[in-house]
């Protein structure tokens, strides 16, 4: 822990890791609340796995063709938005079973990513850091992009707070108030896609879904409104991200899995606590 404090004081790399972790927590709390209350966590997971296709393809064209655009994070953003768009289109415009489409997008994204990574010459350590995250590696280059995406998410959530709340709570009623429900749904999927990319830099694409749902799951036990749930899950996510980073630093553990184990344990504890508390109340 003290090693980490020292590192934060002295190294820009560690300091940026903390800043990125905190910025991602803001997105995580806001969008996680929508994902959990609208029950679209499987869509988020599917989009997360498509991020691999974007990362792999971007890396491939960077290395093989020498292109500078898109860099891996831009590639990830494009792939995530594309995947969210496809899933949104399927659920709004076709009679296809939504979960089948989600599964297809999930697996295809993953497969395409792996194919690209194996076609990219050179050392393929990238795959592991894409899958399980390496915040110390990515933090430096993407600070401003992260900040911009964060600002976008906060702005959208603030401007459309009541509309998104109504669409998540009672879609039919929202439709009768002439809200463009389909458009808000696509907006929600786009926010989810952006957040998935931000979080995948912190914990890797396989673990994104945990960070997107667990802090909100804990917050949901206490929050009485979406606003409260957002703020509380931002806070929880930030605490565990920083804690995970600092605990993993000394023994040189991977930060992503450390963060997830901490958050997951807290979630299970909160569930057990609520269960016991509920029993006590029932017993009187």
């Amino acid at each position, binding site marked *: 822990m003290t090693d980490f404090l020292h590192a934060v004081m002295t190294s820009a790399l560690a300091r940026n890791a903390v800043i990125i972790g905190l910025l991602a927590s803001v997105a995580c709390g806001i969008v996680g609340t929508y994902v959990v209350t609208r029950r679209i966590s499987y869509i988020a997971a599917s989009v997360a796995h498509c991020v691999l296709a974007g990362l792999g393809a971007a890396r491939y064209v960077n290395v093989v063709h020498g292109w500078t655009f898109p860099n891996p994070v831009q590639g990830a953003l494009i792939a995530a938005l594309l995947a969210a768009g496809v899933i949104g289109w399927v659920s709004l415009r076709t009679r296809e079973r939504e979960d089948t489409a989600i599964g297809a997008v999930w697996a295809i994204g993953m497969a395409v990513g792996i194919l690209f990574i194996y076609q990219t010459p050179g050392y393929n350590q990238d795959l592991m850091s894409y899958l399980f995250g390496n915040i110390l590696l990515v933090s430096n280059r993407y600070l401003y992009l992260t900040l911009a995406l964060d600002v976008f998410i906060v702005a959208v959530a603030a401007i459309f707070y009541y509309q998104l709340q109504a669409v998540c*709570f*009672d879609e*039919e009623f929202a439709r009768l108030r002439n809200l463009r429900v389909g458009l808000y749904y696509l907006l929600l999927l786009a926010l989810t896609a952006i957040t998935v990319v931000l979080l995948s830099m912190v914990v890797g694409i396989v673990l994104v879904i945990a960070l997107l749902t667990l802090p909100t799951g804990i917050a949901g036990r206490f929050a*009485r409104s979406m606003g409260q*749930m957002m703020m509380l899950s931002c806070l929880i996510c930030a605490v565990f991200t920083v804690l995970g980073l600092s605990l993993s630093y000394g023994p040189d553990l991977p930060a992503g899995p450390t963060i997830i184990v901490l958050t997951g344990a807290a979630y299970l504890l909160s569930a057990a606590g609520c269960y016991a508390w509920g029993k006590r109340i029932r017993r009187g």
Partner: protein
Amino acid sequence: MTLAVELRGVSFGYESERVLRDVDLTIDQGRFVCFAGPNGGGKSTLFRLILGLLRPDRGSVRVLGRTPEDAHLSMGYVPQNFAFDPRFPVRVSDVVRMGCLGRRSRRAEDRRTAERALEEVGLPQLANVWFNTLSGGQRQRVLIARGLATRPEILLLDEPTANVDAVAEQEILDLLEALRGKLTVLLVTHSASVASRFLEMIVCVNRRVHIHPPADKVDDQLMRHICGYEPLPEQHPPLPSRTRGGAGRVPPAGESPP
């Protein structure tokens, strides 16, 4: 005065099953109308056609002289109370405020509208309570408040007393009674006891519709219609422009034209 609701020759079916056949129905503004009939008879489908959530296979639906979509903001809809995620984090005041969406109004004004609507249903003290801690009856009244917050010309309620206890049912029916005459109220119910409170205009819905003649109590025939024991009579010769041979049909025995 324009009609509140006007259906002409409306038919609708899901996939292969025909739910409503050749429905003609007109409702004047300011009426209190009870749609009664057995479960699965098409009451909710009829409602969804009026709301514009479904489009008829044939025929036309007009609400306040407009298409249902154009009339959305003039309709306040109160769905059944158990159709919600019970864990959704939302305060009572936030739910009621959803009725203000779609209007160009300031947030402060919306807040006042929501407060007034909550007072109207007798629950101003619950404004800051978590929606999911309410009882079924309270939840239903909050949803009625949300419907009123839309400042509707027509209020549509789908089974507002389903899944609530007898006391809550009385409270809700009293509340609706107080709205009588203030706006057009359309109420769906499968319960004869609810229908018996609102005998002004009872529309029985079971594949077809049949407007029951005004009565001061639920008589045997109305009871059989509501419970679905007796099929509803054919509606009378529809519009002359219709091509299908409705006009020549003979009504079933024992039936007099409405």
